[in-house]
């Protein structure tokens, strides 16, 4: 299915690659800009300690990507929380396990084991995506309404265009 999709955006911090895919909607012609449907993502996680291994790949929908953003963001903010007692062993500081249960992925993994630099890179890629996603053209759920508005505007223009001469007459 992804082969018919177009790559919309790629984020490439050192230890992961986040790709956003989507299909261009025929309604784009009317909207005057690219509208996307079936938006999905592929995330490739490289482990610098295991260079001979294939990267771990996670695929999913835009909703699952939003869940992943929430999981990583919550985990990171909890990690950065200032505590009276800041002491913890080095292993606990540098190795992290995130549960992916809320994503309900059709294929494993259910958990992500990340080093702290991998977590940093992933958080940055997802932050960049979150900030840009508001600007990315979408069709899912909300955009048919926008498309409808475009249609209405077009129809109104046509009525005005055809209607005016009759009035003048």
């Amino acid at each position, binding site marked *: 299915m992804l082969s018919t999709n177009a790559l919309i955006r790629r*984020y490439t911090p050192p230890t992961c690659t986040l790709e956003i895919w989507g299909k261009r909607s025929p309604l784009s012609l009317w909207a005057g800009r690219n509208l996307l449907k079936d938006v999905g993502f592929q995330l490739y996680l490289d482990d610098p300690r295991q260079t001979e291994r294939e990267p771990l790949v996670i695929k999913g929908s835009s909703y699952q990507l939003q869940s992943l953003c929430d999981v990583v963001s919550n985990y990171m*903010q909890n990690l950065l929380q*200032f505590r009276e007692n*800041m*002491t913890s062993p*080095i292993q606990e500081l*540098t190795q992290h396990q995130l549960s992916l249960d809320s994503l309900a992925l059709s294929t494993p993994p259910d958990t992500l084991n990340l080093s*702290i*630099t991998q977590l*940093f890179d992933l958080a940055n890629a997802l932050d960049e995506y979150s900030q840009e996603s508001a600007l990315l053209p979408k069709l899912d759920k909300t955009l048919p309404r926008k498309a409808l508005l475009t249609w209405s505007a077009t129809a109104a223009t046509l009525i005005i265009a055809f209607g005016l001469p009759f009035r003048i007459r």
Partner: protein
Amino acid sequence: MYPTVKTSSPVSQWQQLPLESPPDEGQLDNIKTHLDLLLMALEALAKIGSEAILQAAQVLNLEGMVADRVALWRLRQSNPLRKGSGGRKKLDVEEARSLVLIICHLASQNQELIRRSVSLLEQVGNQGQAPHRIALLGDYLDSFSQLYQERIEQGESLTSGQLTEIAFKLMIDLLFYSSRNGHRRLWLALLP
């Protein structure tokens, strides 16, 4: 570090640090301590002194908040864990915002060094090595421990193991604050 990263202007960064309700006394004390310790970690790791902090304030158009060494000293002395007059000066929200932007600016300038240090810490953790045997980490630990013991009230009573763990926790925090979104991450960590 990444070609796609764009820096926001200081004004727009300031606007990205909202405050829903004023922090209570306990939160304010935590904020003052947290900001001072992060600056201490930057001092130890990147050899950043008052001059570089004041320069960052100038670049960010925050001279009004941090005009000179005395103003900076007073701000940092607001940390209640400081020896002597620590905690006497109040830190208002605008001053806290200014320090957040300054810390993240300095962390961003030193991101490569911070990342290299954190990567070395990962290796050390995986291989079960002693971190102080790696020059970069050892130098940082020495500087941080010295600053901490000089300035913090009960600094001398901490073991070297506890100091090491505090130093590395702050170093990792700085990595997260060195990115484009760092100021928002730090603000959220201060005001959960």
